[in-house]
């Protein structure tokens, strides 16, 4: 484009607007409206402040409506066009979100929420790479580069991971839009920068060992990138053997590990009645810690007796048993004599080693996935609560933050079941215990509203269901504008990021993942500037 000023691309002048509705910017005559995309980050040079925001809408205007008639008067199209151009102009709508420069004090503190707007005729530019890095930070020991903003391939949008893991977060998008790739990037960043410890419920077996792209190329998982820093547990060792990628450990669930709460979390998917749910809580008292096993091997007679003892309807107990019977066939549910592999996972996490739990062929078994994820998460949460409380009482160090990644999150968090699962508890209140969720999901619209409102940062790829879009944006400032942006994302590898850990909502083209160069970036440890200085100093001493 022609209007360049210190590599900034001039877009136009502010002519109208409000803080609430955003600013209307008349496009300069050297700029073609077709070159501008909704969602593009911009800066606005006010009188004494610089604003940073993004384009939310655009439209064509006539200074003189009547001139539209002229198209039928002139004989040549050039003349018509010339006449039209005297009145026709294009307007983009810009939402100023933060102030990035003004008085010196605010510069030091980083971007500050815009509580005012720039005056008439302020010049509006496409944000430059420097503007973007001022607002989103630079890749360092806390910030991860996520991708580049629209129309500015050279700039890097970064996410402050330390901020990020303080809350539960979500990655959304319909199938095939790049959720798993984005998740890999975030997980790898968390490992590389040692921000938190990860527990990944890897339903589709794509995060530990290699996953694959749609073109069928294999892409590396965490284990291949970070080897000894990552432990792969598998629920289905046979699957792993077939794939010739042995897991580090097998995961088994002992009968005694199963608690009534786990049954409760399955209430939705097993279609359990209220009575059956209640009754399950009476079983451990009656049958001991292996109640699950004892109950499932009962005969019809036994059930009859049991019902009498518990004063439950026999039909309730029979239906509960019938529904639970499917778990009898799961190979990973084992005898109590076996080792406690849940404890093993907890110890692994405590050592700061990231755990990826592969489901193997249980990928298709939603009940198994929900059971295992709930059961493990509850045990782990208990541990974290205890440790955190102890640490606070003794003023010692709290455990390292834990990020639990779950795919198909809506299965745990739909309104009908979310009250019974541990995950909604974590999303709601677990910040204080240092455990947060990274939920990966294609149907945010069916996730319980309150849980969704607790999500700190949302990274969302294309969604075409209106309900999903609305659910994500309710209560978000600028939601109506973001909807315009969100509904125009490309079908792959593009995401809108908004919420807690980004100062300004931003659309990125997700950084490439899958090439040898992309892996290298995750394997280089980030050079800490202070150590660099020290080295230089010591050289000085000896020279």
């Amino acid at each position, binding site marked *: 484009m022609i209007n360049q000023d210190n590599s900034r691309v001039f877009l136009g002048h502010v002519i109208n607007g409000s803080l609430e509705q955003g600013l209307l910017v008349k496009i300069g005559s050297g700029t073609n409206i077709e070159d501008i995309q909704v969602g593009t980050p911009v800066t606005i040079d006010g009188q004494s402040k610089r604003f940073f925001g993004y384009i939310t809408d655009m439209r064509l205007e006539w*200074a*003189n409506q*009547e*001139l539209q*008639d*002229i198209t039928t*008067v*002139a*004989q*040549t199209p*050039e*003349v018509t066009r*010339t*006449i039209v*151009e*005297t*009145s026709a102009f294009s307007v983009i709508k810009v939402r100023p979100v933060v102030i990035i420069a003004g008085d010196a004090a605010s510069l030091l503190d980083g971007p500050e929420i815009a509580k005012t707007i720039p005056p008439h005729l302020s010049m509006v530019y496409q944000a430059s790479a420097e503007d973007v890095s001022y607002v989103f930070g630079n890749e360092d020991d806390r910030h991860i580069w996520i991708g580049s903003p629209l129309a500015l391939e050279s700039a890097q949008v970064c996410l402050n991971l330390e901020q990020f893991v303080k809350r539960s977060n979500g990655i959304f998008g319909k199938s095939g839009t790049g959720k798993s790739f984005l998740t890999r990037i975030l997980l790898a960043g968390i490992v590389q920068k040692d921000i938190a410890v990860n527990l990944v419920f890897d339903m589709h077996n794509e995060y530990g060992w290699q996953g694959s792209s749609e073109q069928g190329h294999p892409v590396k998982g965490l284990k291949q990138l970070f080897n000894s820093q990552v432990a792969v547990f598998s629920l289905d060792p046979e699957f792993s053997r077939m794939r010739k990628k042995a897991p580090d450990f097998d995961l088994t669930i002992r009968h005694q590990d199963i608690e009534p709460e786990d049954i409760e979390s399955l209430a939705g998917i097993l279609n359990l009645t209220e009575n059956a749910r209640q009754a399950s809580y009476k079983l451990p008292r009656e049958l001991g810690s292996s109640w699950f096993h004892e109950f499932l091997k009962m005969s019809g007679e036994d059930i009859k007796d049991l019902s009498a003892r518990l004063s439950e309807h026999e039909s309730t107990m029979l239906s509960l048993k019938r529904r639970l019977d499917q778990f009898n066939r799961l190979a990973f549910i084992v005898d109590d004599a076996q080792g406690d592999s849940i404890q093993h996972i907890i110890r692994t996490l405590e050592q700061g080693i990231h755990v990826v739990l592969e489901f193997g062929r249980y990928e298709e078994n939603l009940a198994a996935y929900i059971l295992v994820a709930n059961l493990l998460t509850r045990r782990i949460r208990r541990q974290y609560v205890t440790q955190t409380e102890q640490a606070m009482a003794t003023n010692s160090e709290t455990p390292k933050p834990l990020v639990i990644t779950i795919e198909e999150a809506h299965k745990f968090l739909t309104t009908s079941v979310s009250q019974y699962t541990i995950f909604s508890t974590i999303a709601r209140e677990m910040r204080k215990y240092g455990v947060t969720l990274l939920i990966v999901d294609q149907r945010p619209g069916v996730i319980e509203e309150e849980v969704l409102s607790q999500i700190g940062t949302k990274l969302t790829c294309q969604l075409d269901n209106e309900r999903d879009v609305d659910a994500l944006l309710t209560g978000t400032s600028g939601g109506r504008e973001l909807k315009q942006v969100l509904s125009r994302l490309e079908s792959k590898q593009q995401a809108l990021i908004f919420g807690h850990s980004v100062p300004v909502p931003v659309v990125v083209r997700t950084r490439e993942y899958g090439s040898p160069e992309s892996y290298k970036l995750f394997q280089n440890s980030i050079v800490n500037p202070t150590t660099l200085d020290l080295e230089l100093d010591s050289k000085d001493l000896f020279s």
Partner: protein
Amino acid sequence: MNMSIQNRLGEIVESNSNGFVAQCYDLYQAPVIGTLVRVGTDNPTFGIVSYVSTEGLNSDRKAIARGKDETSITELYANNPQIAQLLVTSFEVVSMGYLKDNHISYGLPARPPEIHAFVFSCSQSELDHFFTELDFLSLLAARSISAVGQADELLISTLRFMLDLYPAHVTFTQKLVKELAQLFHSDLNRLKLIIRRLKL
């Protein structure tokens, strides 16, 4: 005979702030309406011919019909040589700008040109210079109706004169159209009429 005599169109016989009236040296030799003309040489005034008239030299002696036995008007004039002595052609010019320090200022001159000042046709370079900017069009549009008593005839004639000067010059045409569109943005009927009349 030098250039300035050759290009002479007439001599001013009436003058005021808005413009002037010039008398031609020869009968019927006035420039056409819409022509840009120049008065003076040092700080010349420019104006556009807005009205042409031919009438009896003496205002109380009207012309009378003489051609009853003549076969053509040419014959009539040839057989009555005294007519040319009794009639006079003059043209009115509305002032549009003046040259000062080699720079055209559009608008009315501070002082009207003097009586007997010579009126010249413009050279190509003078035309080019004057028509570089089109700021005089608003003044012309304002004067157009009163000058001829017909809506926009003067304006349209001038625009034709200008377009004929640069027949295939697309940028000039665009510039002209743009100026008109801006000028008449609140009077689109007028704009449409002009565009149609100019066959643009």
